[in-house]
Each structure stands twice: as structure tokens, then as C-alpha cells.
């Protein structure tokens, strides 16, 4: 069977066409991910809570809005240019107006404010954040001063150049008090700070309806940031106001706010690499042992076949668990074990093929012409088994991916690399299934199935070529 005709036969079947298309999509996506993601994505971003602070926690994907759900979009309002500057004495007051619309009946999940590098010469800048509502009410959210000079520190003073100043406004008790006060005054209500603290955003984005309870207030809101700078040289780089959405991105977020789309995207090249690497090594070992066993015969054959028989019947997952607990969860170790226990199937099959081929006229002729044993194996036997071996390799990739996912799902994955199984485990362990966070467990599983299916379809399309008895018309 020539390589080209194998290719043509694969493309002729529906399974082959779908498989090849999916394969190209998977390879293209992982290439894109490898080019755009940092290679230390796991420890540097995925496992770093600071990166995900301003993301809403455990919210479904944004497209759920299309299904008719009432959602608040996640909005990040950032500005580095003040909308208004007024001189005051030697210094100035900068006003940043960050406008956003609120049209949903649901309230945002949180509000947060952060600001970037601040420089000052003499007195530290003071700043305030106020929420201006469509009904004309204004709620003071934050009033603070940048930290002053430390003893023996020389001007200009640089603040928040490494980590920005970040305040989660909706968890501040002052905000709850201010909201209660403002609503009481504007609508003549009788709210206490603890009433508001139970659901601060519902109060911040609500007004009393006809029945007296708080109803959502739609319209344009403005987060107004005022910064008082004492000297002309003082500056502030940027301010940011985040309105936490009730939905996020393509695939939603997990309970610590991590964007699942990013974690799952990074998991794709990881899964492919794990699968292809282990499958290749295992196929090479399985084929070599099979050829050796079949061609040499005798005691070597007996030994290899007995070993294959035993290893073939060892349950893989319990063994993996055993070794991971004994040696620790490292990816290379897991792959090594997968390889060490997955060669027998192929060895047994290749051996039987070799036994059949050894008696063929081609091999007999080669032997008569004085070809060495190695030459016969490489030139006259291996090429006949090659398409079959290749099909087995492709069949084996999903098996590795599934084994790794299963192990990760038990919490035994290599913690330095986020994989689909680990994301699923995270979700299952923290009760995503029982809380109904379906997006957290459905999408990683779907990706595992999709990837495994791609390889299965390819192998399925190749099978009739390799095994003519299965050829159908």
C-alpha cells in the first residue's frame, strides 16, 4: 500500500473528510495558541489569582444572552486622558468620566476600581470615585489618598508602578453605607447599610418601584474619578473601572474568575503534544518488539510474547495512580508509564503480520539474493506493515489523551501544565455540577471528545485501506 493511495482513500470517505478537516482546525488552533500564549501560561497566568481579579466569578458564556437570558455585559472602562482638567492653585484637578449603559434587569456582579503608576513631587494625590446615576443621584464610592513619602525617600515619588491600586468597591462597607444614605435621601426610604451589603449592586443600580421594593434602574451611568494633583509635574497614568458582568467571553469563567476560553485554548496544544508524543514512542517500541519477536522467533519470541501477554492485561489506571503516588505527579513520568504499558497490543499484531510476511516470495527472494536480516526487516517487511502501524498510532493518540484526562480528573495531573482534565477536576471538586455551572464541565469534556473523535475518524477512514476485508462499497 503506497502512502499516496492511503491518503486518497482517506479523503474519499466521509469519516476521512470530517477527520482531516477537524485535524486541520485543531492543528491550526494549537499553532495559533503556541504563537500567542506565553509558554509559562500555567504558573504565570492560569494559577496566578491576581491576573483574574477583575473577571466575574463563575459566570456562563456571553452567548447565553442569545438564548434569551437577561444578562449584564462585562465592561472594562479604562481611560488615560482626563475628560476635564481644572487648575487649582499650583496643581490641578483631573476628572475622568467613565460612561456606561445599564439596560439589563439583572445587576452587575461587582464593581471595582484600579489605577496605574502615579508620580508626585510634594504632596500625595487625593482621589475620589463617584457613581452618577440616570436619576441624578450620586453615590460616593471611594475616597482615598495615595501613600505619602517614606522616610529618606527622594522625590519624585513613584507609586503603584508594579502592582496597580485596586479596590473591590462592592465589598467595602463604606460603599454600602453611602448607597443606603443616598437612596434614603433621594427616595425617602429607610434602608440600613446591612440591607444594602446583602446585595450592593442591586441597590446601586436600582430605585424603588411602584411596589416600594428596589427595581432595576436603566439608563446611562457614569463612574466619575476625580484626582487632585498638588504640583504641575504630578501625574497619573490610567484609571480603570470594571462593571462585573453576569456573563463572560466565549466559554464563561470558573469560580476564581479564570477565563475558561484561555485555559481550554492552552490545553489544546498540551493535549495534542501529550497524545502524539506518547503514541509515537509507544508505536515505535511496539513495532520494533513485534518485528523482532516475529522475525527472530525462538526464545526471544517466547519472552516478548509472554511479557506482552502480562503487560497487556495490567489495568492501566490503577497502575498510573500507584506510580504517581509513589513518585509524584510529573508529566514525563505519566507519559513514560503510558508508553511502558501500551506497546503489547501492537507487538502482538505486528508479530503475526511479520510471521505471515516472512514466508512470502518477496522475502524469500531477498534472502536468496543474500540480503541481511536487518535489510529484509527494514526493506521488505516493515513497508508492508507501515500503513497498519500508522493507523494504530492514530488510534493510540486519543487513548493517551483520555488516560491523561482521567488521571488529571482524579487530581493527579502535573500542576505546572493546565490540561482539560484538570479544569474538569477543578469544576467537579468545587461542586460545579451541583451548582449548575454546566459551562465549566461541559466544554472541557466536549474538547476531549472532539479531539479524540478527530483521531478516531482518521483511523476509521484508514482502516478499510489497511484491512481490505473491511472494505465496503
Amino acid at each position: 500500500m503506497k502512502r499516496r493511495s492511503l491518503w486518497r482513500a482517506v479523503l474519499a470517505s466521509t469519516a476521512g473528510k470530517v477527520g482531516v478537516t477537524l485535524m486541520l482546525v485543531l492543528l491550526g488552533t494549537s499553532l495559533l495558541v503556541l504563537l500567542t500564549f506565553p509558554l509559562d501560561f500555567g504558573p504565570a497566568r492560569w494559577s496566578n489569582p491576581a491576573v483574574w481579579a477583575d473577571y466575574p466569578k463563575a459566570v456562563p458564556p456571553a452567548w447565553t444572552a442569545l438564548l434569551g437570558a437577561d444578562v449584564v455585559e462585562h465592561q472594562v472602562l479604562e481611560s488615560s486622558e482626563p475628560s476635564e482638567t481644572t487648575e487649582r492653585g499650583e496643581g490641578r484637578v483631573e476628572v475622568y468620566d467613565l460612561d456606561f449603559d445599564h439596560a439589563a434587569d439583572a445587576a452587575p456582579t461587582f464593581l471595582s476600581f484600579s489605577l496605574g503608576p502615579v508620580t508626585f513631587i510634594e504632596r500625595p494625590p487625593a482621589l475620589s470615585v463617584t457613581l452618577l446615576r440616570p436619576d441624578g443621584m450620586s453615590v460616593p464610592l471611594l475616597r482615598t489618598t495615595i501613600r505619602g513619602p517614606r522616610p529618606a525617600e527622594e522625590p519624585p515619588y513613584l507609586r503603584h508602578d508594579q502592582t496597580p491600586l485596586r479596590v473591590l468597591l462592592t465589598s467595602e462597607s463604606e460603599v454600602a453605607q453611602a448607597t443606603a444614605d443616598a437612596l434614603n435621601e433621594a427616595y425617602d426610604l429607610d434602608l440600613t447599610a446591612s440591607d444594602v451589603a446583602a446585595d450592593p449592586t442591586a441597590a446601586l443600580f436600582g430605585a424603588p418601584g411602584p411596589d416600594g421594593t428596589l427595581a432595576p434602574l436603566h439608563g446611562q451611568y457614569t463612574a466619575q474619578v476625580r484626582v487632585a494633583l498638588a504640583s504641575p509635574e504630578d501625574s497619573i497614568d490610567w484609571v480603570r473601572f470594571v462593571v462585573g458582568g453576569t456573563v463572560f467571553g466565549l466559554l464563561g469563567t470558573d469560580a476564581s474568575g479564570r477565563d475558561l476560553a484561555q485555559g481550554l485554548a492552552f490545553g489544546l496544544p498540551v493535549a495534542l503534544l501529550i497524545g502524539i508524543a506518547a503514541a509515537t514512542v509507544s508505536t515505535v517500541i511496539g513495532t520494533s518488539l513485534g518485528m523482532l519477536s516475529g522475525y527472530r522467533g525462538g526464545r526471544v519470541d517466547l519472552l516478548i510474547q509472554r511479557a506482552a501477554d502480562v503487560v497487556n492485561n495490567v489495568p492501566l489506571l490503577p497502575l498510573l495512580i500507584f506510580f504517581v503516588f509513589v513518585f509524584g505527579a510529573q508529566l514525563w513520568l505519566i507519559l513514560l508509564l503510558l508508553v511502558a504499558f501500551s506497546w503489547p497490543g501492537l507487538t502482538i499484531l505486528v508479530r503475526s503480520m511479520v510471521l505471515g510476511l516472512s514466508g512470502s516470495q518477496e522475502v524469500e527472494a531477498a534472502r536468496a539474493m543474500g540480503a541481511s536480516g536487518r535489510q529484509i526487516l527494514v526493506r521488505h517487511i516493515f513497508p508492508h506493515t507501515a500503513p497498519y502501524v500508522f493507523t494504530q498510532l492514530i488510534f493510540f493518540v486519543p487513548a493517551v489523551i483520555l488516560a491523561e484526562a482521567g488521571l488529571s480528573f482524579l487530581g493527579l495531573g502535573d500542576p505546572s501544565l493546565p490540561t482539560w482534565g484538570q479544569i474538569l477536576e477543578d469544576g467537579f471538586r468545587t461542586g460545579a455540577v451541583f451548582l449548575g455551572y454546566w459551562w465549566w464541565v461541559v466544554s472541557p469534556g466536549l474538547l476531549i471528545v472532539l479531539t479524540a473523535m478527530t483521531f478516531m475518524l482518521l483511523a476509521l477512514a484508514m482502516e478499510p485501506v489497511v484491512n481490505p476485508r473491511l472494505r465496503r462499497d
Partner: protein
Amino acid sequence: MSSSLLRPILVRAASLGAVLIIVLVLLVLTLGATGYSDNILQAQVGEELRGMRTSLSETVKDPDAVEEIIAARRAELEASYGLDRAWYERLPAVVAQVLVFDLGEARSIRAADGSNSVADIILERLPRTVMLLTTSLLITAFIGLTVGVWLSTRPGSRADRVVSYVAAITNGLPAWWAGILLILVFSFWLRILPSGGMYSTPPPEGPVASFLDLARHALLPILTLVLVSIGPSIYVIRTMTLNVALSDHVTVARAKGLPEGLIRRRHILRVAAPPIVTGLILGLAATLGGSILIETVFAWEGMGQLYFKTFSGQPDESIIIGLTFMFTLIYVAARLLLEVLYVFLDPRVRYQ
């Protein structure tokens, strides 16, 4: 059975017995040479001494006296755990005991009645696993055989194609994830089945109600296992049967004008039986080991969970050794059973 058949089977039995010994030797080597065994025991000694130290410090004021008592107790404990001997002296003794079915006592895991005998713990969990996994396998095998044999008479038909695609897809479908999806659908959204565990809280009174409750909890995991394995099961049996159905002797039988039913029974199924029975028996033996992933997803306290718990919680050496021994023994017994069955199933098997 003539003696010409008995002797080779005895030889097989001996070689399978050797497999059992080899597995146990490998287990001892891995546990011992990596220092894992010593670590487990040291941790247990440390734990006991910590508890002792806190209770002692309340009654004995002199710190030197406390240290003295602790040191004495440590030596005592290390001797009783065998830590004063090297692993290659200690572990073979443990294995020798296991070989005569004395599985010893667990240190941290207990059976429901409080017994810490490893045999009791395993016997408590075995029926639960049988209820889940063996049941699912029997259901799957039954459907697989019926549909698979039926399909093999219509290769290339629409049903045949559908089954091969379903098989390909479910082959790449992790059962544990399918279980999670079913929990989401039946337990979270529809709220008609429990999401996991074995009994409701509070557990119902009476044996009948109790069993029904258990069965209700087993429904979802069994459904998961059957759904995931049914496609591949049908496909494998169909292909095995089809391979026989396409062979020459069947064509000859047809040419002779034998009735189709007779051909199917005598010329196809009779020939396809040995590999199918092999798969079924080895599969049944494997179910006794439980399924770690499915039992974890459904919080089902069977053999799989027991195995996982011995490692993930406080590692327990006697359970690790006991379970490994049992799993290997079951496998060896199943292989031996097959060797005997082959003689009846396949007339070509005549040991000489």
C-alpha cells in the same frame, strides 16, 4: 477430561501462579525500594506519637521524662511495625501471609461495622462494585451479542453504519465525563435521580426499601456505563462474527443449501464463540476491580474508590497489598477458567 488434557492445564496453572508471585514481588520491590513503604509506616508512627505527646504533656510536667517515654514508645512502635528491619526483610513476610489468604489489618480505613480486617473491608465493598459494574457489563454484553450478531448478517446496511459511527464516537467519550453530563441532566435539571452516593439521607427503614433506595442510586452510574460501552460492544461482536461469516466454510455451507439458521448457529457463532467468551470472562473479572473514575464521580464506595482512597488519604500498605493480590488472583483464576473452557469451545484446542 482425559489426562492428556489435564497435564497441560496444570502446566498453565503453574505458570499463572508464577505470574501471581511475580506481580507480588514487583509490588514489594516498588513499595520497598522507593522508600514508599517506610514513609507510610513512619507517618503512622509519627501520628501516634503526636497524639501521645499531647496527652502526656497534660499529665507529666518534666519535658525530659516526656521525651523518654516517647522514645521508648517509638522504639516499641517501630518494632511492631517492623520498621527496625529493612523493607526486604519486612515485606516478604507480609506477602507470604497474604498468599495464605491472611490479608492482615488496615490501619486507617474501616468497614461499616467497625472491623479493620482487610478481608472484611474488601468483602463489604465487593458486592457494591458487582452491583454497579458487573450489572452494567452483563447488560452491555447481552445487548451487544443480540444486536452485534444481528448486524453481522447485514454488513454495510444503514444500521451497521450508524453503529460503527456511534462506536467510534463513544470510544473517545470518557465514561466519567458522560457520568457528569448525566448528573447535570437527570439530577440537577430534571431532579429525578440522585446525583451520587449510595443511600438517601436519612436512609430508609427495612431491607426492601433500603435495597430499592440503593438501586435508585445505582441507576445513573449503570446507565452511564451502558451508554458509553454499548456502541463499542456491538461493534466488536459484529466484526468478530462478520469475520467468520465471510470465511470460506460458511460459503460452502451456503452452497450446500443449509438453512440460514443452522449456518448461523453451527458455522458462524460456534466458531466466533471463543474470542467472544474470552472477552466476556476477562471483562467480568475486570469489573470486580471496580471503576475508580465512575465510583469517584458518583461517590459510590466500591472497590475502585477503596483502591484510590488507600493512596490519596492516609496510605495503607496492607490494603494496597491485599487489593493487588486479590485483583491478580481474580485475573489468574479467569485465565485458568478460560484455558479449561477453550477445550470445550474450540475443538482445535488439543494440548499435546
